[in-house]
C-alpha cells in the first residue's frame, strides 16, 4: 500500500514538472510580453527596458523558468501586475471559496447520481432506467452556464426565492455556514452538480448492472438469498469505483468552475481567472492555473491510492 | 492464361539437395530482464529459447512438439525474424539470413508462416481475396494478376472463389479461415512453410481435412514444413523427423519412427505414455507426466527435466546432459543416453 503510493508519487512528479512548464510557457504564448498590457502608452524605450529588467523578462527563457520555479517551490507565485498583491494569497482565498462550492456540488451530484444510477442498474430496461438514462444524458449535454442563467431566471427573477449572485450579504470575504450565507450557494451548487450527476449516474448504472449479472450473484439469488445481502454486496463492490469517479469530478469542477462562478459572481478561482484574463494580469493567471492543475494532479494521486487500498486489484502498473 | 506457377524448384535450389533448407545453430532468446523502475525491481529473465540447434532438410516435414511454454512458438517467430534472436545463426539454403547473399526480404519471400489463431491472423476489414492478394501486391504484382493468383490459391485450398472471395473473416468458419491463412502464406510461392499450431484450434474432423490438404499442397508445391504442435498424434501423422522441446532446450531430436518406438529421453517417453493410443501393444506401463512444467524464469539446475523425471539421480541436478547419439540421426539430451555420463542406472544396466 505505502509502496504503491510511493510508486505513484514517483510517476506523478514528472507530470507535475511538465505542468509547471506548461503554466510557465502560458505567459509567453501571449502576443508581446506580459508587460505590454500595463505599460503606459507614452513610456520611453528606456523605461520599458527598465521595467522588463525589474520583472526579469529580459533574461533568456530557461533562466526565467529556473528563477520562477525556484520561487514557486518556496510558495512565491509572484505579484499581481494589476493589484500588486502577492498572487499566492489571492489564489489561496479564492481556492477556499471554490472548494466550498465544488465540494457541495460534488456531494449533490454524487447523491442524486448514485441514486439514479442504482435505480437504473437495478431495474434495467424499466421505465425508471430509461428516465435515468435521459437524466444522465441531459446532465452531460447541458451548457452549465446556461443552466445557471435558467436557475437565476426561475428561482430568483420569477419566484424570488433565492439571491441570484454573490457569496453573501457581506460581500465576498465573510463566508459563514448559516442560512444567510448558505442561500447564496444553493443555485450555483445545484447548477454545478448537473455534470457529475450525469457522469456518476452513468458509471453507477454500468457498475450495478455488471455486478448483478455476475454468476455468483445469480447463484445467491437462486439459493433464496434475500435482496438485502445482494444489495449489500452490490454496494460493497461498486463503492470503490464510484468514489474514485466522485473524487475526479471534484477536481474537474474545481478547475472548470470559471463559467458558473462568472454567472453567479461567486468569488472563487474562476472569478479570479476571469479578472486576470480581462486585466491581462498574466502572473495572476499563471499562478491560479498552476495551483488548480497541481491540485488536480494531487487529487488524482490521492484517489488512485485510496481506491487501491479499498480494492487492491485495481493497481496501475 | 497460365499463372500461379512458382519458379521451377531447380532454379531456386541453390545449395543442392544435400544442403538443409533451414539450418539453425545456437538460437537463443531471453525475454525481460531489463531493470524495473530505477533498476530496482529487477524482473526475471525468461529463457524462452536457450541455445538450440536443428535443421530442416529439403522436402521434409520437421515436427516440433512440447508442452505450452516450452519455446516452440518462440522458435517459429525467431526463425521468421518476427522477434530478433539474442544469439544464433539461421542459414537458409546455406546462406545466412540477413546477409549480403540473402536479405531479410528475400528470405521472407521464401519462408512463410501460418498462425494458430485463424481469426486474429486475418484483418477483419479485408475480404478473403484482398487478404490473399495482399502479399503479391506488396511484391509488385499488378492488381488483376494478384487477384487472379488469389482466386487460384483459394481454389487450391478448397474454397470456391465464387462463394468465398468476397467474404469477410467473421462470415466463414474456423476451418475455412485457416484455409485462407494457408492460401495467404502460399501467395508468395514460399519454399518453407512454418505451421505454428495451425490446426490446434480446429474441431477434430475439420483438423483431419486441413491436415490432408497440407499434405496435398506439400506434394503439389514441393514445400518443406516446420510443423509445430502439442498433439503427438498429429505430429506422427505429419512428420518425417521430430524435435522435442522442453523449457527452451532440445530434449530429443530424430526420425519419427525411432522416437515413437524407442524414445531416448524420459520426457519423450512420458509424453508418449500420456497420449491416447488405439493399439494395446503400444500402451506403455509408465505413469503419465504429472504437474506443470517449472517456471522458465528460474529453470531447474542441471537437466531441466529432473524434478519431474522418474529416472532422476543426483547427477541430473548437477550436470546438464549433452545431446548424445542414440542411433542414426537420433539425439537425446539425457545422461542415460550418454555412456560416459556416469548416471547410476547406466552401471546397473
Amino acid at each position, binding site marked *: 500500500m505505502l509502496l504503491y503510493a510511493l510508486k505513484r508519487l514517483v510517476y506523478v512528479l514528472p*507530470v507535475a514538472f511538465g*505542468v509547471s512548464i506548461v503554466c510557465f510557457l*502560458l*505567459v509567453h*504564448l501571449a502576443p508581446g510580453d506580459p508587460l505590454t498590457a500595463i505599460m503606459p502608452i507614452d513610456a520611453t524605450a528606456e523605461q520599458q527596458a527598465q521595467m522588463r529588467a525589474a520583472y526579469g523578462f529580459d533574461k533568456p527563457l530557461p533562466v526565467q523558468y529556473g528563477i520562477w520555479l525556484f520561487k514557486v517551490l518556496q510558495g512565491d507565485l509572484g505579484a499581481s501586475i494589476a493589484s500588486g498583491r502577492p498572487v499566492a494569497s489571492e489564489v489561496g482565498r479564492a481556492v477556499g471559496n471554490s472548494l466550498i462550492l465544488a465540494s457541495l456540488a460534488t456531494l449533490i451530484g454524487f447523491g442524486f447520481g448514485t441514486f439514479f444510477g442504482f435505480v437504473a442498474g437495478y431495474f434495467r430496461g424499466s421505465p425508471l432506467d430509461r428516465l435515468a438514462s435521459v437524466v444522465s*444524458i*441531459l446532465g*452531460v*449535454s*447541458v*451548457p452549465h*452556464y446556461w443552466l445557471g*442563467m*435558467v436557475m437565476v*431566471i426561475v428561482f430568483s*427573477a*420569477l419566484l424570488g426565492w433565492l439571491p441570484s449572485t454573490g457569496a453573501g450579504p457581506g460581500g465576498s470575504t465573510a463566508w459563514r455556514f448559516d442560512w444567510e450565507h448558505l442561500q447564496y450557494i444553493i443555485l450555483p451548487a445545484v447548477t454545478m452538480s448537473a455534470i457529475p450527476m450525469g457522469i456518476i449516474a452513468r458509471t453507477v448504472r454500468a457498475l450495478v448492472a455488471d455486478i448483478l449479472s455476475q454468476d455468483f450473484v445469480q447463484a445467491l439469488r437462486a439459493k433464496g438469498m434475500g435482496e438485502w445481502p445482494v444489495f449489500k454486496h452490490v454496494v460493497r463492490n461498486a463503492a470503490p469505483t464510484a468514489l474514485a469517479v466522485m473524487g475526479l469530478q471534484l477536481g*474537474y469542477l*474545481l*478547475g472548470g468552475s*470559471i*463559467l458558473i462562478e462568472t454567472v453567479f459572481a461567486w468569488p472563487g478561482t474562476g472569478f479570479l*481567472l476571469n479578472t*486576470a*484574463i*480581462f486585466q491581462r494580469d498574466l502572473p495572476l493567471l499563471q499562478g491560479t*492555473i498552476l495551483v*488548480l492543475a497541481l491540485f*488536480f*494532479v494531487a487529487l*488524482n494521486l490521492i484517489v488512485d491510492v485510496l481506491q487501491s487500498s479499498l480494492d487492491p486489484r485495481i493497481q496501475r502498473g | *492464361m*497460365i499463372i*500461379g506457377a*512458382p519458379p521451377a524448384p531447380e532454379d531456386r535450389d541453390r545449395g543442392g539437395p544435400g544442403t538443409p533448407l533451414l539450418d539453425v545453430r545456437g538460437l537463443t532468446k531471453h525475454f525481460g530482464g531489463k531493470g524495473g523502475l530505477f533498476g530496482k525491481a529487477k524482473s526475471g529473465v525468461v529463457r524462452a529459447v536457450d541455445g538450440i540447434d536443428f535443421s530442416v532438410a529439403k522436402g521434409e516435414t520437421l515436427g516440433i512438439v512440447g508442452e505450452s511454454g516450452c519455446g516452440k512458438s518462440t522458435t517459429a517467430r525467431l526463425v521468421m*525474424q*518476427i522477434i530478433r534472436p539474442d544469439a544464433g545463426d539461421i542459414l537458409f539454403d546455406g546462406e545466412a539470413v540477413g546477409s549480403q547473399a540473402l536479405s531479410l526480404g528475400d528470405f*521472407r519471400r521464401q*519462408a*512463410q*508462416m501460418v*498462425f494458430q*489463431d485463424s481469426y486474429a*491472423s486475418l*484483418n477483419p*476489414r479485408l475480404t478473403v481475396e484482398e487478404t490473399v492478394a*495482399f*502479399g503479391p501486391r*506488396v511484391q509488385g504484382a499488378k492488381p*488483376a494478376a494478384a487477384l487472379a493468383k488469389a*482466386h487460384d490459391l483459394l*481454389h*487450391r485450398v478448397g474454397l470456391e*472463389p*465464387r462463394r468465398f*472471395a468476397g*467474404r*469477410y473473416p467473421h462470415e466463414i468458419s474456423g476451418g475455412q479461415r485457416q484455409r485462407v491463412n494457408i492460401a495467404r502464406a502460399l*501467395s508468395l510461392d514460399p519454399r518453407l512453410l512454418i505451421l505454428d499450431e495451425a490446426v490446434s484450434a480446429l474441431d477434430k474432423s475439420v483438423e483431419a481435412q486441413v491436415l490432408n490438404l497440407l499434405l496435398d499442397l506439400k506434394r503439389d*508445391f514441393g514445400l518443406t514444413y516446420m510443423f509445430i504442435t502439442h498433439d503427438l498424434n498429429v505430429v506422427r501423422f505429419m512428420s518425417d523427423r521430430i524435435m522435442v522441446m522442453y523449457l527452451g532446450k532440445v530434449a530429443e531430436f530424430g526420425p519419427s519412427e525411432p522416437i515413437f518406438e524407442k524414445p531416448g529421453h524420459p520426457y519423450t517417453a512420458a509424453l508418449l505414455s500420456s497420449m491416447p493410443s488405439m493399439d494395446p501393444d503400444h500402451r506403455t506401463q509408465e505413469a503419465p507426466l504429472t504437474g506443470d512444467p517449472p517456471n522458465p524464469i528460474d529453470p531447474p539446475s542441471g537437466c531441466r527435466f529432473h524434478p519431474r523425471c522418474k529416472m532422476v539421480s543426483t547427477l541430473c541436478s548437477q550436470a546438464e546432459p549433452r545431446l548424445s547419439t542414440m542411433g542414426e540421426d537420433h539425439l537425446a539430451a539425457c545422461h542415460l543416453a550418454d555412456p560416459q555420463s556416469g548416471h547410476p542406472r547406466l552401471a546397473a544396466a
Partner: protein
Amino acid sequence: MAAVDLSAVAIPPAERSEGYWASVLRRLRRDPVAMAALAIILLIVLAAILAPYIAPADPFRGSMARRLRAVGTPGYPLGSDELGRDMLTRLMYGGRLSLFMGVTPVILAFIAGSGVGIFAAYVGGWVNTVVMRVIDVFFAFPSVLLAIALSGALGAGILNSIVSLTVVFVPQIARIAEAVTTQTRNRDFVEAARISGAGPLTIVRVHILGNVLGPIFVYATSLISVSMILSSGLSFLGLGVKPPEPEWGLMLNTLRTAIYNQPLVAALPGVMIFITSISFNLFSDGLRGAMEVRQ
C-alpha cells in the same frame, strides 16, 4: 507442375459481402434516436447555411425602440434582443459561427491526434513513452481550465478559440488512438503482413487505419458536444467571438441583462447550444452502438 490453367476459374463473378461501413450505416439507419438526432443536426446546419436567404431580417440592424420584444410579437417570432435585432434571424446566423467554432477543433484534433497516437503506438519503444508522458501532462489540466487558460493567454478571437480547443482535444484523441493502435498492431495479421514483406507505411495504410479509425472517429464525434459547449462558453466569457457578430455563447452573455425583462428571450441562445450538444451526443451514442455489434 504447379502451373494451373486459370481460364476455367479466373475471376468468376464472386458473391460480395456487405462491407463493414455499409453494415454500420444500415444499423444506424434503424436507430430512431440517432436518426432523429441527425435530422435535428442537419436542420440546424441547413438553417445556418441558408440564413442569408431564409432569415426574416438583417442580423446586425436593430432598433432601440423595438428592443427586448417578447416571443411571439408580430414581426419578431422569437422576440428581439437588447439592441432590437430579430432573435430568430440572429439565432440562425449564430449557428454559422457556433457550429464552425465547435466542430473545427474536433476535426483538427481528429487529424492531429490520430496522427500522433497512431505514430507513437506503431513506432513504440521510447518514442511512445515520451509522447504519452507529454500527453499525461495535458491530462493534468481539467479541459475547461486548459481551454480558458490558453485562450486567456492568447487573447480573444475566433482563431485563438479554435486553436485553444484543438490543443485541448489533441491529447484526448491521441490517447485513444494510441490505445487502439497498440491493441491492433500486436494482432497476428499485422505480423503476417510484415512477413509478406510489407513496409511500415503499407501496413499502417492497409492493416492499421481500417481497424483504428472507426473507434477514434466515434470518440471524436462524442467530443463535438463538449466542444460546442466549450467554444460557446469561451464566447460567453468574452474570449471568442467579438460583438456584434452573432454567436450563441456571446448572445447568451449580452442578453444576461435581460433576464428580468424577457427571461424567455434571454434563455434562447442557450437552448440552441443545448439542442445541438444533446443531438451530437445522441448521434455519437447511436454510432457507437452501430459499430460495436461485431468486429
